[in-house]
């Protein structure tokens, strides 16, 4: 007779403890990287924002002096306004465009994938390369593509990047061109999760295309749309490379957003104390926007449940 020995069953707490340990050890390297690359420099940046730092020389503690100066500067407030204008105008163009592209690409089937790949090219390119490319396209002389197009219609060259009225809209168009395809991918994923049966039922009920879109597509796509809006908001609010490459904050500060002001103050004027103060303010505004979106997303999830 053989004695059968049964292994002692592991306690659930032991399993959970091991799972936690495994999870922590997997997360730890990434966490350490985030601390080293993001959190410590951010804390050091905040420390520097409390000092007068010029051209890498720390000239002493000034408390909140850099912040006080910043908020007393009317151009800083103007820059915040320009950032918000740029961000929300770009969103207003990019999101509907991405939605239209997502719907179109899904209907195109295999050719849609080809189209999406083409649309993704600008997103994969470095922003500064995109800026240089568009600078050539927009150059207001016979060598520029847009200049040639105007010329073909007998129109004079247009200073799209240097005219105070046209610079911001032009910048917005380029920014949207660069990354709306990224938003399209997310929305394609969202559209794929909407059951097709709903559309069939709507057709049986006699709903038109617009009613199907407004009563089925939009409500069920809301979580994906909110993700898209959140990510694009942060992306546009922090956009600086396109501005450096295309307009340099001009003309007459028309495209001088907060992100550009940060670059200009810290890296051109070399006032690194004040530059870090701007970075801290930008961080707070970003956090504020994220908090708003999380709140909206939370409500949305609650409503969906």
């Amino acid at each position, binding site marked *: 007779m053989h004695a059968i020995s049964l292994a002692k069953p592991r306690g659930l707490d032991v399993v959970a403890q091991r799972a936690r340990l495994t999870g922590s050890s997997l997360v730890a390297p990434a966490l350490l990287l985030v601390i080293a690359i993001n959190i410590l420099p951010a804390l050091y940046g905040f420390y520097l924002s409390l000092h007068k730092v010029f*051209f890498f020389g720390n000239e002493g503690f000034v408390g909140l002096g850099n912040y006080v100066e910043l908020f007393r500067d009317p151009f800083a407030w103007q820059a915040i306004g320009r950032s918000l204008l740029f961000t929300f105008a770009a969103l207003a163009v990019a999101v509907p465009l991405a939605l239209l592209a997502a719907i179109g690409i899904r209907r195109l089937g295999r050719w849609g994938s080809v189209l999406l790949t083409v649309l993704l090219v600008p997103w994969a390119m470095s922003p500064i390369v995109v800026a240089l490319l568009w600078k050539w396209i927009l*150059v207001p002389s*016979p060598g520029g593509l847009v200049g040639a197009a105007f010329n073909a219609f007998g129109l004079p060259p247009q200073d799209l990047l240097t005219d105070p009225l046209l*610079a911001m809209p032009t910048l917005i168009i380029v920014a949207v061109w660069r990354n709306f395809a990224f938003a399209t991918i997310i929305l394609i994923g969202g559209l794929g999760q909407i059951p097709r049966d709903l559309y069939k039922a709507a057709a049986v009920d006699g709903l038109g295309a617009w009613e199907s879109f407004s009563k089925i597509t939009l409500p069920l796509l809301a979580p994906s749309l909110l993700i898209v809006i959140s990510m694009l908001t942060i992306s546009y609010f922090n956009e600086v490379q396109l501005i450096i490459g295309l307009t340099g904050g001009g*003309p007459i500060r028309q495209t001088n957003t907060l992100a550009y002001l940060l670059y*200009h103050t810290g890296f*051109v004027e070399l006032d690194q104390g004040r530059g870090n103060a701007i970075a801290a303010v930008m961080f707070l505004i970003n956090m504020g926007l994220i908090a708003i979106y999380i709140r909206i997303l939370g409500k949305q999830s609650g409503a969906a449940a």
Partner: protein
Amino acid sequence: MKSMIFDRRSVLRASAAGLALAALPKQAAAQGLSGTVRVWTFLGADGQSPREVVLREIIKRFKATHPGVDVRIEAQPFQELEVKFVAASAQNRAPDVIWMRDTFLDLVQQRGALADLDALLSDDFKTKVLPDLYPVFVEKSVFNKKRTSLPIWPSPAQAIFYRKDALSELGLDAPPLTWDAFIAAAGKLTKSERLGFGLPTNDNSVSAFINILSGFGPSIFDAATGQFNVTSAEAKEAANVVRQLVANGALSPTLLNAMGDDIQDQFASGRFAMVQAFAPRFQQYKQIAAGYSGKDLAVSAWPAFGTRPPAVLLGPYWTVGISAKAANPAAATAFVESLFSEEASMAWAKTAGLVPDRRSLLQAPFFSTPEASDIRAFTALLAAPGVMTFPQRMPNITKVFPVMNTALQELIGTKESVGAVLERAKSTLGW
């Protein structure tokens, strides 16, 4: 006792041996140098612009005479050179050789990032080469008796480039050299899609406004403070020049934040009759000319106010220094010296069309040829009575150019009063 007979052959042999012996220590020193010289410049190691081609030739020649030394070009964006250098110096990873703009010299030397060249340069260089360079540039690099850098490519920096074919339409050979006449001519040069005058208004190290103001002569800069009076009567007159150029169509009110490169590209395509341009790029402008013939390109000083001589503001220009923390100072010094050899100066002149750093070379036959006519024009500008440099120490130097460029944009693109625009610029500078 045998008498010694000195025939012609033995004398020649002895002389040859003597010369060889004299050359030995130098050769031995050259061969004794080894390691790598890291160079930070805005010129690319593989670039095709005339200056890049010459730099490659110089490096090739240097390596041939110093086989143990490798020269590594680490190209940097030109507007970041000084900043990156000071940061790298603080972290003990600075290159051995650094290209810098003269306007940043004071800031960089204050950080202790530059070696004293007088302690490094060979006696031969100090006695023969230094006195042969343009004193106006050389002296600006000396701070408290410490030689921080050597100026390279002497030039009037920001000059006016113009198309002879366009000016000939008005029966002119060159732009008028007083502002009143210049404004009138520039207005008439605007025709169809061509503009009479183009100004870079958004560069961080160039200010067209200061160039216009330089028409009042060197007294615009306060010798004690290094500042210029932003709201003075002279500054207001300079601002009025801008307003008049806009009013008569010479300047476009919608071309507001063009950078130097934009102006260069648009000038090449024929959009302007005259532009403010960086003098060392003259050959490049000629090469890329598409909307007109490169042969029609010429250079002029800036007009002056009243009866003053034409203005030539020498700067910002490039200088070359050696890091105080250079890993290989001896080889770095030898390389820097090679940039100013007679061969190098001739190469900069012949290939890149630059005024030779060595003034004595101007006597060489090449500089009398038609090929060197542009260089003669630049050399004449350097010797002009209205010549001046930026002060050695100008407060807020990192803000001056952007602030004055924004003021210039406002002068061109708005109807706001000249006084209000200049007051705002002054207040932003904190002067």
